[in-house]
């Protein structure tokens, strides 16, 4: 019969109070833990995927949208840019390298991206099976796509127009064939179907002009059809280009130059990401405050529960002193009740947050193809454990001190 067990039994003796305190703690802990996980995952995904990309150029429009669409693949592209202009920009002495990207279609919600092999290299993608695309309509798919759509080497599929799957928009003339599957990388390439840019051009030239984008110019549309299915380089378009500068000087010069002198728009991922993070941070702070308030209230609930039970148990505690318990033991006994409540609330809170992550992950994957995975306990959550146990202990401190300084003779005489 050690003190820990006795504290536990004392808590079980008043199940409703205990349940109340644990539930409040659970709520507070789960909200904080969920916030931690979400912000870590989002920060991680955001920061990870812009590594090594200094600038993105695309059609004129919102730079945030440009970054979201061409780096994270979660928004619609701003439009298309002429291949010629993109190639010219690549020749600029301050540009080290660039990766061209052309969007068009999707398959079951997963984007089909026409790009170069350097795109996969940039994200340090490795082949799990097969090879990278070589010919038009060969596709190498990300691990997430392969898993969710159950595709394997040799499978064929038809892309559908745009990002949303519709019956009418299926390009059923030309099927893609899976030639390679990438190993999981936890980066955007997991969620993409990659193919030569030529595939995108071919499919849309066969169809007439059906390039992706909302800022399509009707005149351009007509022009393009006049040229017929035989596209030449002059008229080819891509959606966006990821760029790396040769030197930091690029930041001073290039964005302004692109915006002013070309039909393209330049966006800096680092700036857009920090702007987005800032936008989130207001909401995040609000939720943090709510969570802290809940933790505070649960601390008070722990205090009230222990304090009121102590009134009924004064005689019991005095009795324990007559049996040889020291004042310190009584203090520890009461503190342990607070700490046990804290630990229970923590464990339940972490469980709830993990269930929450699984549910959210389901929606995230449906909507953005970004799975959330967090099953292990992070360092921050270990600090949270410590903090919650300290709060439990602090809530029990005043009752504990009362137990410590109990006048046993008086208490026993009062019976």
């Amino acid at each position, binding site marked *: *019969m*050690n003190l820990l067990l*006795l504290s536990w039994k004392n808590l079980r003796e008043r199940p409703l109070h205990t349940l109340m305190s644990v539930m409040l703690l659970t709520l507070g802990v789960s909200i904080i833990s969920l916030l931690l996980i979400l912000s870590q995952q989002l920060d991680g995904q955001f920061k990870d995927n812009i590594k090594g990309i200094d600038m993105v150029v695309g059609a004129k429009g919102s730079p945030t949208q440009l970054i979201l669409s061409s780096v994270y693949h979660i928004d619609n592209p701003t439009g298309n840019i002429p291949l010629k202009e993109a190639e010219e920009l690549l020749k600029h002495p301050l540009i080290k390298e660039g990766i061209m990207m052309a969007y068009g279609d999707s398959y079951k919600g997963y984007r089909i991206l026409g790009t170069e092999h350097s795109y996969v290299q940039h994200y340090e993608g490795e082949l799990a099976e097969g090879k990278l695309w070589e010919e038009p309509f060969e596709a190498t798919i990300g691990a997430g796509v392969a898993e969710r759509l159950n595709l394997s080497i040799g499978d064929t599929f038809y892309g559908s127009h745009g990002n949303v799957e519709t019956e009418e928009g299926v390009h059923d003339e030309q099927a893609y064939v899976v030639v390679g599957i990438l190993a999981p990388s936890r980066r955007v390439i997991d969620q993409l179907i990659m193919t030569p840019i030529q595939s995108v051009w071919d499919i849309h030239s066969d169809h007439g002009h059906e390039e992706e984008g909302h800022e399509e110019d009707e005149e351009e549309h007509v022009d393009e059809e006049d040229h017929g299915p035989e596209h030449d380089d002059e008229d080819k378009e891509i959606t966006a280009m990821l760029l790396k500068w040769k030197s930091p000087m690029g930041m001073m010069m290039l964005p302004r130059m692109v915006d002013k002198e070309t039909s393209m728009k330049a966006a800096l991922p680092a700036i857009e990401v920090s702007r987005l993070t800032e936008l989130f941070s207001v909401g995040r702070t609000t939720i943090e405050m709510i969570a802290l308030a809940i933790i505070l209230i649960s601390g008070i609930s722990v205090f009230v529960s222990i304090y009121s039970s102590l009134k009924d148990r004064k005689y*019991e505690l005095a*009795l324990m002193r007559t049996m*040889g318990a*020291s004042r310190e033991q009584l203090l520890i006994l009461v503190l342990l009740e607070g700490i046990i409540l804290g630990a229970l609330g923590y464990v339940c809170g972490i469980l709830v947050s993990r269930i929450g992550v699984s549910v959210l992950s389901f929606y995230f994957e449906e909507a953005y193809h970004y799975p959330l995975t967090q099953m292990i306990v992070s360092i921050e959550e270990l600090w949270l454990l410590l903090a919650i146990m300290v709060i439990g202990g602090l809530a029990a401190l005043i009752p504990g001190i009362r137990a410590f300084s109990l006048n*046993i*003779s008086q208490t026993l005489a009062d019976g």
Partner: protein
Amino acid sequence: MRLSFHLVDSINLDNLYMMILSSGLKFAYTERQRFQFPDITASVGDPLLILGNSGKGKTTFLHLLGGLLQAHEGEIIINETDITRLSIQDLDRFRGRNIGIIFQQSHFVAALTVRENLQLAQKLSGNPVDHDQIMDMLARLGIAAKSEQSTYRLSIGEQQRVAIARALINRPKLLLADEPTSSLDDYHTQEVINLLEEQAHAAGSALIIVTHDNRLKEHFSHSVELD
């Protein structure tokens, strides 16, 4: 009924010479409420009855002897230790090992069963938890069948037996009983006194009973009155 106390060979030598004595004890709650207590002695097989009406400081005396209050003057020697000189920590430890107290009303740790309450008493005294000893003690008091019950489910009589078992489980040098018979009829008074004497003797404890119950006087050869 006092037959068992003459079986000197069942008492070990330590206990035979084990004495409780107090001398020159004084305690004051306030300037007006002062108590001066008579000197007493008790030993194993020679129980002491302390008689006194309400307001004569019975409970105070009991608490002083049990180390629950600290005397302002005088000494209390239990097994060669003057407990008035012990620090609070040492007194807690000493009390756990050497003093068993039975209160007028039986209280227990409500969250624990009968057996667990006895375990707790062993644990808090610093003794190892000895399951067999607990079951022996409960069997001797005729309540072994109740060992897994909650204490508040027992009858008053059973609760008193558990309180006796708890007070004696660590084989204390001194067993203090506060008004053990005040609410009992003559028959049950006799029974409880027998039980206390037997069990204190078996555990090797010197017994001191503090009461206002004058019926007990005829049972004890050795008594003092507070006035």
